[in-house]
């Protein structure tokens, strides 16, 4: 496992350092984007090196990251001397990575000529690219609408060709966003090792299906719940070696991560072979309550330390909320003495929402298109008006239909209809406002995503 982790780290660090060297090999000044890219690469290398216990590398990357940060904030002058300083720092880091890989030092000053993994793309840029792809699609849909009924064959041929191009563009952008689940494994492995060592336990991680790919955003969102589940397994599941021997189990506790795909969805199983749930919890399950409901009931520890999670399952509410926010489900199974199993089902790709962009009170709002029955110029008098808390209404009307209710939402302007990527907001905001998410707009700003089912009828002002 250690060798595998080292190999992944070496590959990733080599790729990032080669990109740093490329940035610095360009003649002339480093622009803000290049400085930002340098900073991000160094920050990532530092984080990975530290989490894998490569202290010297982490420190060297940290020192260089500080320089890039100073450059970014204007505290360090961008001049040939600074660029030389950064180049020699990158060279030093490359030597350290090569040493880790068992290779001789590289020749100084230029990007390594040896083959390297394909260059990665800044995740932020990938997000922007996707927003643009969605925006182009939306514009094209409007164009198609305008062309309906047109008989100019040359124009229609152009339309078909454009439609094909846009479909291919979207497909490629979605493909570019995919990364293997393997990306999560080093973090899990290193954390497992550290937590086990702290508690005098022996633990090993077994991974199956880690080549399966998912959107990077989904993977990023999985880091926290998976780390939480793994930590619970070590802290509350795995027994000390002597206890395991007495129970007829191997001394080393096992944590197994198994990933499989179900069409566009992921199935992730994380299970351990530890002591399982206490008998009193098993008794509650036997009375008909689901284990996930029992263990995710909200209760926080009274402990003052960072270790907020005092018992098996405490904090599983947060894990469940994270998974559900991704459009997924969490199932738990366990028996006293026989391990603990968490099974996650979730979309492998992003939540793309077909929505209306509206403006009111200086705020841009995303209204999901599903519940919008019509966009009207005049409000029908026989329908209740829905309250948009904290925002004024306007002349434009959206007729909303949610189960058991119809109503009018008034806004100043309905800008257009488009597809957006939704990022969930999570608690407490999603619990206390009608906004459940935010979306980046192709124009470069953020907009709040409204949940129409949460809108209450407007109470008429007293006469």
């Amino acid at each position, binding site marked *: 496992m250690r060798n595998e982790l080292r190999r992944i780290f070496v590959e990733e660090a080599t790729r990032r350092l080669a990109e740093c060297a490329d940035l610095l090999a360009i003649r002339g000044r480093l622009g803000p984007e290049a400085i930002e890219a340098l900073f991000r690469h160094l920050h990532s290398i530092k984080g990975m090196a530290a989490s894998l216990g490569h202290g010297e590398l982490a420190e060297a990357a940290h020192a260089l990251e500080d320089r890039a940060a100073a450059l970014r*904030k204007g505290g360090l002058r961008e001049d040939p001397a600074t660029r030389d300083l950064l180049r020699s720092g990158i060279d030093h880091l490359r030597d350290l990575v090569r040493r880790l890989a068992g290779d001789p030092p590289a020749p100084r000053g230029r990007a390594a000529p040896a083959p390297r993994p394909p260059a990665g793309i800044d*995740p*932020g840029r990938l*997000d922007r690219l996707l927003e643009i792809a969605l925006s182009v699609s939306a514009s094209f849909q409007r164009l198609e609408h305008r062309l309906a009924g047109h008989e100019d064959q040359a124009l229609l041929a152009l339309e078909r060709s454009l439609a094909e191009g846009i479909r291919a563009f979207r497909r490629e952008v979605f493909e570019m966003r995919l990364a293997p689940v393997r990306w999560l494994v080093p973090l899990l492995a290193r954390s497992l090792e550290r937590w086990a060592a702290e508690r005098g336990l022996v633990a090993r991680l077994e991974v199956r299906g880690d080549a399966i790919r998912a959107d990077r*955003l989904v993977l*990023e969102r999985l880091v*926290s719940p998976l*780390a*939480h589940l793994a930590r619970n397994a070590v802290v509350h599941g795995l027994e000390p070696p002597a206890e395991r021997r007495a129970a007829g189990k191997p001394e080393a506790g096992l944590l197994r991560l198994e990933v499989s795909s179900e069409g566009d969805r992921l199935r992730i199983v994380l299970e351990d072979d530890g002591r399982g749930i206490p008998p009193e919890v098993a008794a509650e399950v036997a009375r008909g309550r689901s284990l996930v409901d029992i263990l995710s009931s*909200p209760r*926080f*520890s*009274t*402990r*003052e*330390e*960072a270790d*907020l999670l005092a018992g098996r399952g405490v*904090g599983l509410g*947060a894990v469940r909320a994270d998974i559900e926010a991704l459009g997924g489900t969490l199932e738990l199974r366990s028996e006293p003495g026989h391990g603990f199993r968490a099974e996650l089902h979730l979309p492998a790709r992003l939540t793309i929402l077909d929505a209306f962009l509206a403006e009111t*009170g200086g*705020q841009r709002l995303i209204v999901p298109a599903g519940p919008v029955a019509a966009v009207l110029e005049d409000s029908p008098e026989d329908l209740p008006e829905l309250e*948009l*808390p*904290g*925002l004024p209404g306007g002349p434009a009307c959206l007729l909303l239909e949610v189960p058991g209710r119809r109503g009018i939402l008034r806004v100043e302007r309905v800008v257009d209809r488009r597809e957006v990527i939704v*990022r969930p*907001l*999570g*608690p*407490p*905001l999603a*619990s*206390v*406002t*009608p*906004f459940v*998410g*935010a979306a*980046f707009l192709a124009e470069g*700003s*953020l*907009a*709040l995503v409204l949940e129409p089912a949460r809108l209450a009828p407007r109470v008429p002002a007293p006469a």
Partner: protein
Amino acid sequence: MAGAPLFLLRAPGGTLPLLAVLVDRLEEAGELLPVPAAPPAIAGVTEVRSVVLTLLDPAALPGWEPGEPDAGSGPGLPRCVLRLTEPWRHLAIHVPAGSRLDGATGPHPGVLTPRRLAAFLADLVTPAGEPR
């Protein structure tokens, strides 16, 4: 709690002492988008490295000590966010421009701890899920 490492967030208008274990990292913030009808403790949402974060107003958090903090040296930080650790990775504390962040060692009366933060967040929502 004696000797626990902590941060002193010295912002315009006061100081927030908080345990270092609550802080994941300090990062420059993007555009701050206010959220209509949100509790006053929520400053808005922002994007940091393609992640949407809900920002907490430091002046509304338990432990906030009103008063002008020491001037210190230098211009202070640009507008930033203090990203929180588990289980609050979707949250961050808003660090207004001109603030400073200093390290210190406890004990410090009224310091923001994980327990206090958890209680504060729970208090923002009634059991029925309605704003208080």
